[in-house]
């Protein structure tokens, strides 16, 4: 399918990273290609559904997480990755982020966080450096407080970090969040500020130090990676034969 994001859209970077990570994991026999299922939200993030040659579910606004959770519960043998925007994950469907973080289904949630509802022409989301000067919503401390077992943030600028974090998130047994900061070239072209304000604090579990997350810097890295039983394990759901 021809790509219909705006020319130069950093979503292309995320698409490239996702494709290359999946290829690497398949080549290394860590996962099977036929077991990959990508679930998308709608809007610009949802378009990724058409650009990947894997099993996929084009969901509803804000509902990628529950659909992905259901898929994993229906067949725990699948590798389930949700790709959604900030509008869906941190607005319309925020409830699901909190619950799935707690319950720990083994799914990966990749959030393309550009601060706008782009496809409806640029209305601000909760992560937009807003017009009225309202504080920005930070999903990282929320995911940590909700006991997500893998919490991370990257930007679409740092290819290598993004790749390694996406890979770690997919391989993590349990719920993993990868929040990816990127500008929207059409409606929130804030790339320079993002680059300037990014601070890498990788490897630092800020569970005990929420103050950190309230700083104006965009902190990137893996903030938590811990092991605990997944929802499927607790419910003793088994893999479907194939």
């Amino acid at each position: 399918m021809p790509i219909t994001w705006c020319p130069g859209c950093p979503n292309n970077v995320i698409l490239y990273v996702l494709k290359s990570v999946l290829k690497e994991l398949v080549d290394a026999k860590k996962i099977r290609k036929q077991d990959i299922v990508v679930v998308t939200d709608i809007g610009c993030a949802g378009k990724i559904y058409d650009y990947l040659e894997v099993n996929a579910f084009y969901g509803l606004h804000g509902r990628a997480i529950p659909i992905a959770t259901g898929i994993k519960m229906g067949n725990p043998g699948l590798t389930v990755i949700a790709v959604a925007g900030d509008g869906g994950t941190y607005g319309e469907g925020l409830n699901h982020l909190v619950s799935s973080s707690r319950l720990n289904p083994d799914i990966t949630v990749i959030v393309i966080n550009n601060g706008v509802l782009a496809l409806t022409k640029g209305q601000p989301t909760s992560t937009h450096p807003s017009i009225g000067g309202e504080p920005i919503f930070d999903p990282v401390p929320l995911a940590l407080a909700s006991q997500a077992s893998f919490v991370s943030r990257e930007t679409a600028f740092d290819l290598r970090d993004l790749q390694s974090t996406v890979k770690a998130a997919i391989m993590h047994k349990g719920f993993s969040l990868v929040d990816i900061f990127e500008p929207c070239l059409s409606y929130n072209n804030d790339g320079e500020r993002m680059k300037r304000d990014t601070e890498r604090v990788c490897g630092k579990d800020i569970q005990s130090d929420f103050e950190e997350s309230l700083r104006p810097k965009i902190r990137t890295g893996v903030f938590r990676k811990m092991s605990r039983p997944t929802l499927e394990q607790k419910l003793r759901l088994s893999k479907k034969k194939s």
Partner: protein
Amino acid sequence: MKRSILIGGEAGRGVDRTAALIAEIFSDCGYFCFVYRDYGSFIKGGHNFSVVTISSEPVFSHEDEFDLIIALDNSALEKHVESLKPSGKVFLNSDEKQSAENVISVAADGFAADKKVGRSFGNNIFIGAVLGCFGLDWRRGFKAIGGRFSAGDAAVVKEALRLGHETWRGESFGFEPKSQKLKISTGNQAAAKACVEAGLDLCFAYPITPATGFVDALSQSGKVTVHQPEDEIAAVNQTLGAVFSGAMAATATSGEGAALMAESFSLAAMAEIPFVLYWASRLGPSTGVPTYSGQGDLKFALNIGHGEFPRVVVAPGDANESYSRTMEAFYFAYKYRLPVVILTDKNLAESYYNFEALPSLLRPGKFLVKPKAGYKSYAFTENGISPRLAPGQGPIVRATSYEHDECGLTVEDPETIEAMSEKRWRKAKFLEKEIAKLHPCRLYGKGKNLIVGWGSTKGAVIDALKRLPGYSFLQISYVAPFPAREVEKIISKAKRTILLENNSTGLLGRIIREETGIEIKEKLLKNNGRPFTAEEIAKRLQNRYA
């Protein structure tokens, strides 16, 4: 022979359990039973009651007057004594001798205190007293229900039944045990049994009265994994995800929860994901009266979800139909890849009926195909049904909320949009043909005056027909697709047609008019949360057409 018992007391005192045990004993002894449950939104306190009707003939509704009142407290006696038949008796929870001749003390609380067991345990003394009054040996009663208790508890129950039986000294109603044995089930339990037999793997549901009993029954079956997510929206989306990945899954809710599921109902239709929604209505609008019943969601069930798409809405009328129609629901959802609503209400979902799981003509299953090169998730076929494959087996499998081509890839061109919409609707023709063989509507009785209804009102109408010579009853079970030709044929032959519904505007009547052009002007409607009784239907019709 027909007798009626009211059991009343505070919430948490075992009113419902006691009624169910009585019904279970008499059913086991070959008598037909129906239990109506009336309760408010309390956990403890307030006043709840159940009415057990016991008869030598099939019975599907409760009575307004009682031969026996079991009053777990004085307030139950005060509230219901006016409905006691002149010859009726009262069993009152008390240690003291009663001055009124027809009030008999049963020391249930005293027994529970002596035995150091919960107060509800004392209720078994009342059951013993009922057995005495009806003329059944207490040992026969114990045989029917003893297995429900642990060995230690069973000994206490045994003693309670014996003691209770001794409190009855009068002449008995003369209910001899029969050789036949009957079973009881609520509509919820019957539907859950069908789900288990259909092969349900997972149920995602957020608690809501009166659908919770269905979910509990699934959980108790030990064969279905039940998951309670954060809300109804998660429940429906998890259901669709699980079905996509190859499981058999369902969700259950009431009208309010269905409102939250509307967007995903439409998703199921567009993505062609088999979807079964067990929908047990309560009295709306809004929070309404959550523990009481109504048939106000009919049009909502027929229209839930944006856009146009084929769907099935099936409304069972009793516990046997809850079972059989649920089987059919799974069959149609999975075979045709579309959303199916099983529309029931509190009266049917929570009342106890005699129940028999009649073998289904249809075999529900997942209708999944084996992987094959060149597989397309939305392949065009003659009947519109694209073969369904679960992911994980090689070919790429897609599901999408967006309009799509055969591979499931996004499209916006007019030709594919038209072709895909046509493909989805093509299924409807084949679906209608199959449904036509399943009695989508059914005529009871031969009278020239026709009562038309649907869902839980069936029981009271069937019972009322015995008092209404000259009347017949048309029950419409499949509301979508609607059996228009058959309904039109039956109504046009009737001398007089009366629409009977538990709602305020006669929703089925409006659907009949839309589908057949026939307007039913005579209406018998009730919308106060309480079901019709047979006597009420008979009286209201006789008064109107005397």
